[in-house]
């Protein structure tokens, strides 16, 4: 949303542009300040926004207003770029994408921007210099995480693999939080023969505020990168306090809250580790993969025609038909309860799923409940579905199952091979021994 035609005309006449100093005289008084652009939503098109010298922004009606451009203008602020290279000789690579962790607010105009350089993120966390030297910084693309897709995962996996095969001890990927767990799952499958730690990190609070949570996340991620784990893990706040972070296995983690700092929780297992910003680490897993000298291969094939479908009471099976008609090759169904779809009602999904499988579409079932496993045999309805050939993904998270199916379909056309791949435990996506304490961790 821009200013109204009327205001635009007034501004043209005064030869004023956002950033210029402007005097506005209207019946309420005389106001001087910096002309700001209109925010995209809220307020009235017919108000001019000034930032007064006191710092306050105000909206002034243009009715009966006289405008005069004054000397001077506010340039965009300079932001520090700083890369920690101190005496520490341990090297870490940074691959920056986008998201809250790399936004900034321009204090003069109030606009929210992506940081121009990833180095500017590091300037927020000078203590990193005590932990490691950030020897390589890459930024293959800058996107909010909700705008990312499998092509971005492919680019990212290749970039990360390159860094892992260099002299870095580990790699930090900065990322928006909304779909961070899809990316962590994608990297878990795509980085074949993972040899070093990979930390996927975001922030729930923006870096403009003193309460920025990303700083602790980055510090703990750096410590994770120096650990002996050869695993892809998310590293985010473990509690609402600024005390420690949780490193969670990339395939078993999910954003479980829209806004709190500790939104990323392990599902159906424990966290891999607790990590404190001072470097203390407590590994909760014993059987994680250890750092090795091997080379990692970016195995990034992915089938675009893969979809995630959620049945709900009264949902029409036409959803399945749609995907089949659109030549989709794989569907993850978030089954209700133990893995159901409507079976005996007027809108049974069974015929449509049967048709899909007949046409060579791989159909797999993951738990809508998130916690616990889907099971092919407990109820007759389940048997109906599994006898059609649907693959039951146990306790695999639906998002992880979606990424895995797309990745598997990128490798083969053969339904049997797909089934084998879906049921093989590549990156801890299955936990075969779920215990009481793995619920709501």
């Amino acid at each position, binding site marked *: 949303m821009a200013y109204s035609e009327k205001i635009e005309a007034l501004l043209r006449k005064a030869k004023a542009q956002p950033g210029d100093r402007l005097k506005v005289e209207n019946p309420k*008084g005389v106001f001087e300040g910096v002309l700001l652009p209109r925010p995209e939503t809220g307020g009235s098109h017919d108000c001019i926004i000034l930032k007064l010298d006191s710092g306050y922004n105000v909206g002034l009606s243009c009715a009966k207003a006289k405008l005069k451009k004054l000397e001077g203008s506010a340039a965009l602020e300079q932001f520090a770029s700083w890369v920690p290279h101190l005496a520490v000789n341990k090297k870490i690579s940074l691959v920056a994408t986008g998201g809250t962790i790399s936004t900034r607010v321009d204090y003069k105009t109030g606009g929210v921007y992506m940081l121009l350089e990833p180095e500017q993120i590091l300037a927020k966390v*000078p203590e990193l210099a005590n932990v490691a030297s950030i020897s390589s910084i890459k930024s293959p693309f800058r996107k909010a995480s909700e705008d990312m897709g499998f092509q971005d995962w492919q680019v990212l996996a290749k970039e990360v693999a390159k860094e892992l095969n260099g002299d870095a001890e580990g790699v930090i990927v900065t990322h928006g939080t909304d779909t961070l767990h899809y990316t962590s799952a994608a990297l878990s499958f795509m980085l074949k023969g993972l040899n070093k730690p990979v930390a996927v990190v975001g922030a729930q609070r923006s870096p403009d505020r003193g309460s920025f949570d990303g700083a602790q996340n980055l510090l703990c991620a750096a410590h994770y990168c120096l650990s002996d784990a050869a695993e892809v893990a998310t590293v985010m706040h473990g509690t609402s306090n600024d005390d420690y972070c949780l490193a969670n296995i990339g395939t078993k983690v999910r954003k479980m809250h829209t806004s709190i700092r500790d939104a990323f929780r392990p599902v159906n297992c424990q966290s891999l580790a607790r990590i404190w910003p001072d470097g203390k680490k407590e590994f909760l897993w014993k059987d994680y993969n250890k750092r090795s000298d091997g080379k990692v291969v970016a195995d990034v094939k992915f089938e675009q025609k893969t979809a995630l479908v959620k049945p709900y009471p009264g949902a029409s099976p036409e959803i399945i038909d749609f995907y089949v008609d659109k030549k989709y090759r794989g569907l993850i169904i978030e089954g209700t309860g133990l893995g159901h779809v409507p079976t005996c009602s007027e809108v049974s999904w069974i015929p449509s799923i049967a048709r899909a499988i007949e046409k060579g579409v791989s159909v797999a079932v993951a738990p809508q409940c998130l916690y616990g496993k889907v099971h092919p045999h407990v109820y007759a309805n389940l048997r109906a579905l599994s006898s059609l050939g649907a693959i039951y993904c146990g306790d695999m998270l639906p998002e992880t199952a979606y990424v895995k199916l797309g990745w598997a379909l990128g490798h083969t056309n053969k339904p049997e091979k797909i089934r084998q791949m879906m049921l093989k435990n590549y990156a801890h996506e299955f936990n075969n021994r779920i215990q009481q304490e793995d619920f709501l961790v």
Partner: protein
Amino acid sequence: MDYSTIGFKAGIEIHQRLDVGSKLFCNCPCAVGEEKPKSVLRRRLRAVPGELGIVDPAAAFEVAKGKTYVYETFRGSSCNVEEDEEPPLELNQKALDAALQVCNALNASVLDEVHVMRKTVADGSAVSAFQRTALVGVNGSLKTSKGNVAIETVCLEEESAGIVAREEKETTYRLDRLGVPLVEIATAPSLKDPEHVKEAAEAIGLLLRSSEHVRRGIGTIRQDLNVSIEGGTRVEIKGAQQLEDLPFLVENEVLRQQNLLAISAELKKRGFKRVAFGKPHGVSHIFAKAKPFLSDQLKQGKMAMAIKLLFCKALLGREIMPAHRFGTELADYAKSKGVKGIIHCDEDPAKYGLTENDFLEVSTELDCIEDDGWAVVVADESVALSALRAVFDRAFSEALPKETRRAEGRISRFMRPLPGAARMYPETDVLPVVVGQSRVAKAGKLESFEERKAGLLQKGLNEELAEKILRSPDARLFEQLSVSKVPLKTVAWLVTDVKQALKREGFEQLRLEEALKLLEQEKITKAAVQDLLRLGANETGVSLEKLAEAGNLSRIKGEQLKQLAASVQGGFGEIMKRYRFQVEPRELSAMLGKEGGRGGLSAKGERFPPGA
């Protein structure tokens, strides 16, 4: 003192908490201090970029080493919004309307569009590290006996978190207070003298009290002062709570600035030249024999360190305002760096269990001659260094430093340097609000003190009682209760004298409205009111009417009174003596008069409550 000749400038900011149901940006009720915390959060703050957006890595290191902030959270009065775990909801519209009402009362122009800003706050009192604030009105004016005072701004903002404890490594705040809506009214720095400051503050306070949307009670209104004089500097004094203290705070600040200027002049006269901050000397060996509160710290590994303060001898001990010496001023700077205080050359060594000779030894250690003074701190080495540095810089600052000071009764103490222009940027999670003329008009106007007084006079109160009522915290309560048919004087007596007397006795839950109803229905007498309210405060589950019956406090009137009068020997005096809580003297006297008995109000000249 003639304030017109010293370049005196003063302005006030009044912060008034609003009572509009919920907080400014969430649905939590504004119940401050009413419950025990349910849990605590522990957070740290990051350095935010300086004015040019540049973080000085060295400064950031300091912050990283810095404090932990502990936040108490509450089941009933804080949520994810206060905890900085959820974006704010939209601006509380009732609070905005209350602010519009204030604008109208002060003839301030309301801005066409109100934008919520984030004002950065670095002391931990806001969990997010910023306070949300919005400019609502500008260019108002306030009538005073010394002319109109310009009201520069009317803002709506969030209250900060309440401080619970401040310790060396961590500060604890409570979140029930964070986010309570405040209206902030700022005058121009055009107040003429200390009494004028008080008058303006009182006038604004009285105006605010006429709003039904403001909170009452201790801590709900706060005054900040801005004071400067010619040759001095602008100082902000925060948190004055008592109106009576304001003129003293202003006078003492003028005095402080004048005396500090005199000290600067004296230093120049003594030949002071700027020198660099030299390396402090260790003097632990001298202080090892001091009283345990010092020597024990040394045993624990802390150090006593000293610096020379050139030409400062006898100046450190000079009083710059009541009970506050130049040395106290320097000590406050040192304390801001984490030490407990300073020891200086103009003090009595006996205070520390030391002798004149010990103090001389410190002077010798530092090569002090004649006019040279010194200061000592006891702390960990790094803390001691930064504290001494702060003392040195303050003692020899070129001009009087611009400061934010904290009101402590009638004087003020150094809190922190005055921040530069407030660093503000838009609260992008809250949309701007368009405020049309019709909304401003609908918000209405607060009646001025004079208008309200005139109203009460018209209703029949005398001047003295009207002012007493309007200045009391219960003016609103009075207005609520004065719709009853009971005479206004009785209502006034009830909400002022009776309420205050019973509060002093410790009774809080007074059922005034219920008592008034019984008076209106002639079910009790005025004489019975206090006893009945006492009973009612203890027996909250029982109606006052029942309590009156049970406690022999029900009024005896009409036929019943006639029978009583007939049965009691001794006439008016005797009846009133025995039944003074149950009989209205006026009714009895009228009855006895009519029946041919003895007239007069009270045979013994007993005083009864005022009223009908």
